[in-house]
């Protein structure tokens, strides 16, 4: 029983990071109807940026959470304005080529700048855990999950309780009507992309204290994000959160009860089953939490 609870806990905790990356992806898709194939690479860049800053300043990676978040929001906003925007009215093929190209570019740049080695941050609490009711809760993983929860609540508040957030949801539901209301679609695209990238980068920051940093790290998280987004229903934020936690748990249970190196098998098996039986997404069709 306690191994089961342990696996569940691990799964839920890593699910927080999955949720951050996946919600970013689904938000961009919902508003822009663009699939960002570089989502994982933004997480990777967020990790490297944080690691470099933390090593240079010799302080805890979390010190740079807000700074990295703001920087990546601006980065995403400008990237949309000057690059992604040119593909918005083109077909999906053009958008895929562009974001896929960006992902290759970022990976190669990271390889050139930081080299292929696995790195990790030195933090005092890396191996610390809390022991609650027979379950070990890794301290850095708990922190990461906490960040995910806070960021999700902030995003919920932004989307549901602010003028701009409401406008963004409206653009996702009906672009033409939103423009008629006076909502500038270009601004919404920039915001959506900026926030989407920021969520991935924040996920990256929260991974640094307990995960290896290397140029290819984004590939894994990016793939998971796609699975999660399809599970949750394209463009559905609540669906992405639920999907992320579910995938985290499936992954951890497979690792525990089948084989450690087959954990992805469980993830993709779950994915195929959902595609077969609930292709519209776990919760509903396209909707906004």
């Amino acid at each position: 029983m306690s191994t089961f609870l342990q696996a569940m806990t691990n799964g839920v905790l890593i699910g927080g990071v999955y949720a951050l990356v996946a919600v970013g992806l689904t938000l961009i898709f919902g508003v822009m109807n663009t699939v960002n194939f570089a989502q994982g690479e933004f997480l990777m860049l967020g990790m490297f940026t944080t690691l470099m800053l933390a090593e240079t300043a010799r302080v805890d990676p979390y010190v740079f959470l807000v700074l990295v978040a703001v920087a990546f929001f601006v980065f995403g906003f400008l990237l949309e304005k000057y690059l992604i925007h040119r593909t918005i009215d083109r077909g999906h093929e053009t958008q895929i080529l562009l974001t896929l190209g960006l992902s290759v570019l970022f990976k190669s740049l990271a390889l050139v700048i930081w080299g292929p080695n696995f790195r990790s941050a030195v933090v005092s609490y890396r191996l610390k855990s809390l022991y609650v009711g027979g379950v070990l809760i890794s301290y850095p993983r708990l922190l990461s999950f906490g960040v995910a929860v806070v960021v999700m609540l902030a995003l919920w508040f932004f989307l549901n309780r602010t003028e701009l957030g409401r406008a963004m949801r409206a653009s996702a539901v009906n672009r033409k009507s939103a423009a008629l209301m006076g909502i500038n679609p270009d601004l919404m695209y920039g915001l959506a992309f900026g926030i989407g990238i920021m969520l991935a980068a924040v996920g990256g920051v929260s991974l640094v204290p307990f995960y290896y940093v290397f140029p290819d790290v984004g590939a894994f998280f990016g793939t998971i994000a796609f699975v999660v987004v399809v599970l949750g229903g394209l463009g559905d934020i609540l669906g992405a959160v639920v999907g992320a936690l579910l995938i985290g748990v499936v992954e951890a249970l497979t690792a525990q009860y089948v084989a450690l190196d087959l954990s992805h098998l469980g993830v993709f098996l779950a994915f195929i089953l959902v595609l077969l039986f609930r292709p519209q997404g776990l919760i509903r069709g396209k909707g906004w939490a």
Partner: protein
Amino acid sequence: MSLLEVESLCAGYGDLTIVWDVSLKVEEGEIAVLLGGNGAGKTTLIESIVGINPPQKGSIRFKGEEIQRRGVHRMAELGITLVPQGRGLFGSMSVLENLYLGSYAPIPRAKRAESLEYVYSLFPILRERKTQKAGSLSGGEQQMLAIGRAIMSDPQLLILDEPSLGLAPRLVETVFRSIVEIRRQKKIGVLLVEQNLRQALSVADRGYVLESGRMVLEGRPEDLEANEHVKRAYLGC
């Protein structure tokens, strides 16, 4: 100076021209009706006026100012609001959120509370339904919401694209009555696009008939109604 003045406008998509050399105007405080059958080019013309599909040729002046190069999202702040065909509601959002979005632009936002009360007084059912999802309303309620949302932007020119489409006769009457009411109380100009000729002309001050993308007739509603061509083509007598 007219509220809206469209001159020699050509509109279409890509190389295809659908609306040819059309001119029309709407004066302040009047209801102008644009009539025409399916495929006459009414929606193309309207979408061209509000910038969804910018005109290929011609000029559009609002209160004397050229507006044809502005984007769609600038129309709300200028004072032009379109209730699109099919209503264009934000179906998965609540009634209240739809109304709030109507007053997204800065100037109407300052008057939001006041406009909301006015919309509720016009359509009391919307107050009862305010927490419901827009997509869950009945057809008539959805049309009221679409008009209410447009009123929230406190427009000077209200354009309605076939508001009676798909509504039961009794509801069509409610919708038309509300349009007349809004015009009377707010003194705004209304451009009403309709196929429902008899009812539309009964509320109009001015009428236009569009056929195959060309304006074939214009004039006072009673003259249009008496016109032999209109009688034969649209009234079935």
